[in-house]
């Protein structure tokens, strides 16, 4: 093949077939070459190395979704309902997330296109813009709550809000400095691992393991039926399945360069992410379960939970809890702002990759940085109804999921773009069940909100 230089830049070259190879392609090819080399070797260690190379988007999507409002939701669940129905319920929500996110892996690996890009191109801008509006509103509200969590968590250690927000932004921006997807992914994975900090917090709370085992098997004791319970159900679902995860994991799968051959590892990555995130979520419920029957945790912020937990788990444990909230907020602010930047780039047809040098990816990095900076600035404005944002964010996520899932369902069943990795019937049945469950939960909440006495006959 003859190759000639491209006048566009020193890192671009053009083949005789007019195929332009960009800096982004070079970086991705480098990552793929390591994958190919690992795949060609035999033995357990090589398989483990291959897995290490291919994991990332799934774990980041799942642990990224264990964000500020999610951890607050789990904390409220433990404090309001103790150990019971919600322990297996949270496991179920992560199983739902696994079903949904697995589809994004296949879609990304088969099409090499982002989620927003596919919706726009396949179904047209009319439906594409609806999806983008849902994503934009959801992402921005969620980003605000991440900075609320960071502010509250660092506030526990006496750090003023402006400093807390600046620290978070500094971490977010420094993760981008390498201009390499691989480096960004590893740095963010390292940060996300701290989500497991809630496990030692739970151990400090000395949970009754017999009750935990009984709850996991029997789903009992059941919570009282009423709007509060419905809100927590919706909030816990919104804590595990949200539209930004779809957009993020698919775009990250494409940016990482996964192909159909890697789908098996993409699934393992998503399963591992779901398992780790479920562990952290359950740990948070167990950590705050001692508050059950002791205090009313309605509308608690992160720092208030940490303070309330001090008599039960000590100052060290409470400090770990507050740090966990900070970590949750920082990792989610990184992944959510990245999902916004990917979607913007895909729709606006601008370069969109974490492999882009700053000069080539100005719009991508600008959207990413500005989204985070705007959300951070809003948190510092005195007198804004931030509790309102925290209250609605997870519920909004649940409500926005059914339309997003229908697009995902249509895309993964699209023979023309999916070919041999089109969804099998069992996957479709599971996806349909998730859509029905999410829609039903939303409608039940709507009924309870519009007619508060509708469930009076069932109990509180």
């Amino acid at each position, binding site marked *: 093949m003859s190759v000639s230089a491209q006048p566009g830049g020193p890192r671009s070259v053009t083949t005789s077939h007019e195929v332009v190879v960009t800096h982004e392609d070079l970086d991705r090819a480098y990552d793929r070459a390591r994958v190919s080399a690992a795949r060609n070797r035999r033995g357990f260690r090589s398989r483990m190395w291959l897995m290490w190379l291919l994991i990332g988007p799934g774990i980041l999507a799942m642990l990224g979704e264990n964000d500020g409002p999610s951890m607050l939701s789990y904390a409220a669940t433990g404090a309001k309902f103790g150990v019971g129905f919600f322990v297996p319920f949270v496991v179920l929500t992560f199983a739902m997330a696994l079903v949904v996110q697995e589809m994004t892996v296949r879609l990304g690996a088969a099409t090499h296109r982002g989620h927003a890009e596919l919706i726009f191109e396949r179904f047209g801008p009319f439906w594409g813009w609806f999806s983008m509006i849902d994503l934009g509103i959801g992402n921005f509200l969620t980003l605000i709550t991440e900075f609320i969590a960071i502010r509250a968590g660092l506030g526990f250690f006496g750090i003023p809000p402006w400093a807390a927000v600046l620290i978070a932004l500094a971490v977010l921006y420094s993760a981008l400095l390498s201009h390499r997807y691989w480096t960004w992914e590893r740095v963010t994975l390292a940060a996300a691992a701290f989500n497991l900090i809630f496990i030692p917090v739970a151990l400090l709370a000395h949970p009754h393991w017999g009750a935990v085992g009984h709850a996991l098997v029997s789903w009992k004791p059941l919570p009282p039926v009423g709007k509060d319970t419905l809100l927590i159900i919706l909030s816990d679902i919104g804590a595990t399945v949200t539209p930004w995860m779809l957009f993020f994991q698919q775009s990250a799968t494409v940016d990482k360069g996964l192909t159909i051959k890697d789908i098996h590892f993409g699934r393992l990555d998503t399963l591992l992410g779901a398992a780790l995130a479920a562990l952290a979520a359950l740990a948070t419920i167990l950590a705050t379960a001692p508050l059950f029957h002791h205090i009313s945790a309605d509308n608690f912020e992160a720092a208030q939970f940490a303070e309330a937990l001090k008599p039960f788990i000590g100052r060290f444990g409470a400090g770990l809890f507050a740090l966990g909230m900070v970590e949750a907020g920082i990792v989610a602010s990184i992944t959510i702002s990245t999902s916004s930047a990917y979607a913007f780039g895909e729709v606006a047809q601008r370069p969109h990759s974490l492999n882009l040098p700053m000069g080539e990816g100005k719009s991508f990095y600008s959207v990413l940085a500005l989204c985070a900076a705007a959300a951070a600035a809003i948190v510092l404005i005195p007198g804004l*109804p931030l509790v309102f944002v925290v209250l609605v964010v997870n*519920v909004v996520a649940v409500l926005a999921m*059914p339309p997003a899932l229908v697009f995902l369902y249509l895309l993964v069943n699209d023979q023309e773009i999916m070919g041999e990795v089109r969804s099998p019937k069992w996957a479709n049945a599971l996806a349909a069940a998730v859509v029905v469950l999410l829609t039903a939960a939303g409608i039940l909440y709507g009924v309870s909100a519009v007619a508060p006495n509708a469930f009076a006959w069932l109990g509180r």
Partner: protein
Amino acid sequence: MTHLDQHERIAGPAAAEWVLSELEEDQLVEAKITPVPRRRLGRGELVLLWALRVYLIFMMVVVFWQAWTAR
């Protein structure tokens, strides 16, 4: 040093050939400039999408109103 290390981040014709050998054709940035062909939505799909759109807008109003009055 493996053969990969020798190719590491080398710009120019050799790198281009190497990139084309490592990536699938439709993974190249340039391949993504060509849009995926448009697909017509069926009547049932359109009804479902509109129903969910109405559901979403209605529920958003309910949730925002509820949360605002509960502050």
